[in-house]
């Protein structure tokens, strides 16, 4: 018998728990040649802002041991072009599309959430709170529980869609952040976003990235992500999406044992554009081979 791969993410029914992570899968279309989108649970678009953003100067990416740094600078087409040029594609695919978005003030977040709420093709909203708050001296929303809660409350007020809050790992106490976001009305938490890292070119005596620091992702960060998912899953009631260095089905299943209801595949899609589809298929095979009838039985099933 085929195992039951479906999961329920705060009211959203997914055919399986494998999603693609924001910023690593374009707007979905870019991967159409490599991934049959209807074999994965959901996909998340590149982070959207109110105005189009051109992003940072280059170099923007650099490989590090077991990982990579990116300083794309949140380049994106902006909400208007998203609606005009990208949404029609979403309509053609029978898989939930989740819009990731960010702002530099609470008002910007709220305005975006309100506009995305109106788009029927957008199944859920994922708030990226790893952005500087320009009204508070550039402190990153996602590193202060009150700032984060402010963003979440403002978004919650304007949307009834599933509201996913994506947590930053660059904090002392991720559980406090998670609780603050849950209390402020998040339906679901996704974690982790990238860690802040840096690479140096010895011969040029310069940082490799034009932006100096960048977001650290890839298999190297998995132990940190797994630890945070486990800590947060014990502390909150809302479902969790595990993210960070997931390269294969084993990694994905480990995140589920740690307490994740679904997972997002990020950097792996760069190395193998078909990664998400492959991981979903391999997870199903693992369930079959191990006599697990329902993937939901693995969520938080870690014996610890």
């Amino acid at each position, binding site marked *: 018998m085929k195992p039951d791969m479906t999961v329920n993410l705060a009211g959203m029914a997914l055919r399986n728990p494998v999603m693609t992570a924001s910023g690593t899968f374009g707007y979905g279309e870019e991967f159409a040649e490599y991934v049959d989108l209807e074999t994965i649970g959901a996909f998340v678009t590149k982070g959207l802002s109110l105005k189009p953003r051109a992003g940072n100067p*280059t170099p*923007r990416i650099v490989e590090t041991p077991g990982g990579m740094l990116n300083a*794309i600078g949140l*380049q994106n087409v902006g909400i208007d072009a998203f609606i005009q040029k990208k949404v029609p594609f979403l309509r053609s695919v029978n898989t939930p599309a989740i819009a990731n978005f960010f702002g530099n003030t609470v008002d910007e977040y709220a305005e975006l959430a309100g506009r995305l709420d109106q788009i029927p093709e957008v199944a859920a909203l994922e708030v990226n709170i790893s952005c500087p708050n320009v009204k508070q001296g550039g402190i990153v929303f996602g590193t202060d529980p009150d700032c984060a809660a402010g963003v979440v409350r403002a978004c919650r007020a304007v949307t009834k869609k599933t509201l996913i809050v994506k947590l930053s790992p660059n904090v002392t106490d991720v559980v406090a952040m998670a609780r603050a976001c849950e209390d402020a009305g998040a339906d679901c938490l996704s974690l982790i976003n990238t860690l802040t890292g840096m690479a140096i070119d010895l011969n040029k005596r310069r940082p490799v990235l034009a932006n100096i620091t960048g977001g650290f992702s890839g298999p190297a960060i998995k132990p940190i992500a797994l630890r945070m998912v486990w800590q947060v899953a014990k502390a909150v009631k809302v479902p969790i999406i595990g993210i960070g260095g997931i390269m294969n089905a084993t990694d994905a299943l480990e995140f589920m044992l740690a307490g994740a209801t679904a997972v997002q595949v990020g950097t792996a899609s760069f190395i193998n554009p078909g990664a998400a589809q492959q991981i979903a298929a391999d997870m199903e095979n693992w369930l079959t081979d191990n006599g697990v009838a329902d993937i939901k039985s693995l969520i938080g099933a870690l014996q610890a």
Partner: protein
Amino acid sequence: MQFTAMILSNAEVSPGYWRMRLTAPPEFASASPGQFVMVRVNNAIDPLLRRPFGVFDVGTHTPAHSGAAAQPYFEMLYRVVGKGTAMLSTLHETDLLDILGPLGRGFDLGDSDEEKLIVGGGVGLAPLYLLARELVKKSPVRLFAGGRTRDDILCITEFERLGVECYTATEDGSLGECGLVTEALLRRLDALQGRASIYACGPHGMLNAVANIAAQRGIPCQVSLEGYMACGVGACLGCVAPGNRHSAETPDFRCVCTEGPVFESGELKWRD
């Protein structure tokens, strides 16, 4: 397209430069000159990301002993600069590699009544051989190959065999003219009678010089860029290069892996 290729040969053609031939699916034969592949160097996580390389040549090998099926292949010409290329150079015949490609937008072959001036710096020659193979079918083609020293001048015999007239220049004078290859290009442009069009690939400084020359003389020019790439398919936005309207205030970035790697030089931002 993603496929597993088997290495047919991997040989050092000049100190530090290697030429690798790999099996390809039949569809690969339609790769256009200037397109590239993303190579996964091994299945471990070190190196983690794929490495981009131009398509040096495509073809079909018909084995000598009758009966064996014809084998489509492609070739890469690569320089050992770091970890990934060093590992590639240790691979042997029959080893397997995971390949993504052909990717990107290649060269526009232009009009047949133009004289084609190809400018290559060092391993920048890699995507220009397949280009020359196509261009010689319709137009006269000249190659201007430059490098720091004679070891950086690659595969000239192959170009000559196509009927391409080759000029070489090295910075240390160890092969051909002493100096920059753009000087020979300028002389040719001065002597030129009819229309011409330029195709260039190589270090950014060289491309900048060629683009400026082309702009001054109003000659169409296509350049093939490099950029740090993670995905090769337009998703990561890591590989971008500044377009002609780019400024710090109003950035204008072009995606090298999908809009390029070949661009009309006029589309891009250059230093004067």
